[in-house]
């Protein structure tokens, strides 16, 4: 042996580094960067860059920007609408104080009303005897036990002068419900906005008069408070023009120029002008027959648009005789008059046979008014004035009103008032006794919880379903390699059955068969999202089980024997020896399945979930922009799958063993 070592040393003498070809050129930093770059998954990076470029050019086009916004749940940059909450607080005094503070002025009355609905206290009545009294509390002993009640919460006590030892019936505030929007949260407190700030913006030329009022502060409630100044503005009712959609006894609906519709209550309307057609006929001519070649003379006021009026006239069913000129091919002579009164007087005199009047101004009933005012005239109205009921231009003036608030912005022609201040309530987290409801608020970068449709839903469902599918797959995969025939049979049945059914059918099963059964049997209400997650997870679990089975079986038997011979149990050997190796083997197929599931998640739209595809389809059906709509859907899916395959690559590389 020593000889051998000698020989090796002669073959490789301790060398001068400069002579050794490997050490001769020390690795420079450029080489290192090149080596590192050569190892990156370049194809994915190039595709991702292209995807980003395409996305960018799409984002800079208005049409695409609109699609993308609707596919991504219209995210805001930042919001303070973190959660919609209902909290039950055990310590009501603070809120009570706030409540009484806000009940004096008309503006504050609104707040008070709102507060009434958002802060709701629960009163409890107990009967017993007073066991102990301290300056701050009363302890009563009742049938249900002893209660210590802060005196500040007592609302009623009977008798009012009860003393220690005497019987008493006492009513006090037990808990308070706060409903609102969570805007901030830290370890100690939660800030809930119970009343939203409200602002109005309107044109300054609507201001009729304005007045400054001072609201005195209630120093009894809060010694530090300051008087507030508010501005009270009398303003003219808004004038709205548009096309009339519907007109009913109570409501009207207008289509405005920007294609939006506006519902207006008739009670808010001061007046409105719709085109109204009125026909007045000379009494003598009303019964006359009109024959071929006869002349019919129609008078009109100069300001009447006679073409429109004649078109309207055609739509009338019951046209009085002289106007049925078309029947006998009568010749129509149109005679303009300077104003409507002149025309009516001409009709009275028999110079013309009839007057046609179409007007949408305040004077639109002028003909009827004149006929009313001149009962002796030789003119009659064969049909009442006819208001247009739909599809005509209309102008509505709303009633004048009054706004009170503080000015927060004023430009040359517009003014913005804050009419209602936001009301914040700070809750001590220790005092919260029940989180009745916490629902994610507005979708924004600082509140991704609130993003729950489109691409976010797709991603969330995919990640959750995949996680669940991994668990299911691992479970059934282990059963597939188990020596227990029953477990083996169960898992084989599962794999074969699920693999043989289309994923779409499995999803429909989860949504419409399994979920109602679960509700009926366990009373557990699954959301659509969970139905989708469960469907996808069970559908993919079968494939993942097979992947795990193959992975476990690819590990040589010697590994299990070595582990067992060291005294590890079967589960321990699986957990510490076989699975870590098997997982490395199955990472690539698992990654493939992940990407496949992301794409197959498009099927969940059959469960009426607003995922990426569903929103895309809705967009297309709304706007008929199929090209932009589906382009965007495809690009977003592609971008996500590319990023995921990059991620999978990175994970695979990190899991690789040194060789």
């Amino acid at each position: 042996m020593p000889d051998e070592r000698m020989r090796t040393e002669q073959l490789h003498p301790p060398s001068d580094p400069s002579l050794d070809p490997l050490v001769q050129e020390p690795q420079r930093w450029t080489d290192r960067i090149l080596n590192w770059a050569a190892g990156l998954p370049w194809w994915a990076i190039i595709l991702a860059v292209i995807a980003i470029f395409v996305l960018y050019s799409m984002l800079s086009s208005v049409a695409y920007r609109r699609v993308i916004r609707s596919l991504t749940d219209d995210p805001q940059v930042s919001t303070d609408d973190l959660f919609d909450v209902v909290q039950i607080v055990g310590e009501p005094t603070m809120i009570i104080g706030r409540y009484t503070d806000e009940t004096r002025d008309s503006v504050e009355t609104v707040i008070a009303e709102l507060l009434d609905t958002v802060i709701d206290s629960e009163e409890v009545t107990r009967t017993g005897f007073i066991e102990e009294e301290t300056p701050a509390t009363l302890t009563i002993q009742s049938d249900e036990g002893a209660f210590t009640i802060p005196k500040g919460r007592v609302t009623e006590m009977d008798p009012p002068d009860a003393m220690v030892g005497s019987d008493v019936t006492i009513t006090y505030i037990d808990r308070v419900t706060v409903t609102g929007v969570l805007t901030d949260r830290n370890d100690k407190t939660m800030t809930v906005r119970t009343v939203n700030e409200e602002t109005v913006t309107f044109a300054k030329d609507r201001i009729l008069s304005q007045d400054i009022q001072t609201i005195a502060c209630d120093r009894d409630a809060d010694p530090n408070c300051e008087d507030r100044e508010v501005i009270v503005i009398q303003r003219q009712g808004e004038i709205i023009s548009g096309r009339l959609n519907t007109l009913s006894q109570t409501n009207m609906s207008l289509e405005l120029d920007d294609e939006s519709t506006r519902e207006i209550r008739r009670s808010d309307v001061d007046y409105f002008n719709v085109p109204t057609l009125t026909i007045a006929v000379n009494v003598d001519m009303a019964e006359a027959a009109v024959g071929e070649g006869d002349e019919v003379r129609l008078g009109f006021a100069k300001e009447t648009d006679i073409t429109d009026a004649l078109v309207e006239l055609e739509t009338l069913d019951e046209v009085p005789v002289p106007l049925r000129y078309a029947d006998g091919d009568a010749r129509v002579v149109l005679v303009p008059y300077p104003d409507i009164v002149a025309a009516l007087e001409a009709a009275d005199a028999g110079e013309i046979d009839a007057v046609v009047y179409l007007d949408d101004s305040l004077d639109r009933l002028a003909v009827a008014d004149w006929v009313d005012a001149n009962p002796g005239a030789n003119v009659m109205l064969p049909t009442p004035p006819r208001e247009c009921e739909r599809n005509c231009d209309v102008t509505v003036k709303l009633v004048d009103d009054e706004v009170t608030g503080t000015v927060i912005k004023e430009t040359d022609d517009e003014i913005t008032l804050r009419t209602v201040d936001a009301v914040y309530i700070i809750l001590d987290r220790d005092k919260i006794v029940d989180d009745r409801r916490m629902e994610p608020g507005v979708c924004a970068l600082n509140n991704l919880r609130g993003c729950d449709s489109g691409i976010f839903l797709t991603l969330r469902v995919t990640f959750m379903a995949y996680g669940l599918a991994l668990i299911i797959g691992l479970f059934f995969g282990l059963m597939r390699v188990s020596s227990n025939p029953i477990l083996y049979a169960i898992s084989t049945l599962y794999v074969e059955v699920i693999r043989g059914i289309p994923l779409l059918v499995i999803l429909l099963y989860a949504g419409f068969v399994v979920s109602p059964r679960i509700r009926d049997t366990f009373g557990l209400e699954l959301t659509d999202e969970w139905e989708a997650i469960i469907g996808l997870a069970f559908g993919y679990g079968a494939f993942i089980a097979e992947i795990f089975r193959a992975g476990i079986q690819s590990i040589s038997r010697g590994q299990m024997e070595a582990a067992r011979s060291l005294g590890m149990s079967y589960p321990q050997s699986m957990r510490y020896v076989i699975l870590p190796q098997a997982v490395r083997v199955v990472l690539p197929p698992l990654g493939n399945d992940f990407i496949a599931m992301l794409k197959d998640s498009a099927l969940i739209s059959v469960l009426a979930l607003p995922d990426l595809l569903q929103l895309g389809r809705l967009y297309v059906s709304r706007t008929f922009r199929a090209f932009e709509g589906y382009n965007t859907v495809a690009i977003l899916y592609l971008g996500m799958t590319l990023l995921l395959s990059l991620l999978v690559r990175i994970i695979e590389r990190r899991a690789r063993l040194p060789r």
Partner: protein
Amino acid sequence: MNEPIIQIHNVHKRFHTLRGTVHALNDISLDVMPGEVVVIVGPSGSGKSTMLRCINRLETIDGGSIVVDNIPLTNARNINKVRTEVGMVFQSFNLFPDRTALGNVVLAQRVVRKRRRSDAATKAQNLLAKVGIPEKADAYPAQLSGGQQQRVAIARALAMDPKIMLFDEPTSALDPEMIKEVLDVMLDLAKEGMTMVVVSHEMGFARAAADRAVFMDEGRIVEEDIPDVLFSNPSHDRTKLFLSKIL
């Protein structure tokens, strides 16, 4: 000495395959005393591996009884207890490829013996030093030579403080230069008084370390004796034939 630490009595083992039944162990009886080193030789397929694997119940037996350190190998509950007392070294090393040499030696200490991480690591480092490769603690099996891997495997088995070590042809997958480094480790172990059952055709090792040599053929123990006698002067023809082939 007192009682045998391994008592094998009339053991039968059959393998049922599609092509018929193989009677791998046919009425085997063998006692091993504490501290004894027994070398088993025999032609391929004679049941040597099967017998070793029966001792720590990697195979179940069809008849007879095996008692290891007074624990009968009858039900599954005893089995992990026996296995922690019996270390096994395989022909193909069977190191865990996803753990370093140190990790291989640490794992079972942590999982089975519930030792603290630092204690297990210290013990593992000492054992790696004992088998002569302290500097390879952080290498992965794929980065080690066959001889080094086998020595890690020995350290891994020793980490459980076994009373008995089973070696199944530990050197037959190795190049000649590496065989010696593994046999040296085994020789040291034998000198320390470890009870060892070794399947090996390394005559030099057998003569130097073994107290007894056993010749098996066709599932039976044909003869046993001290190595010098068995190898140079066997009494059965089959043994002679076999020895003439391998020497």
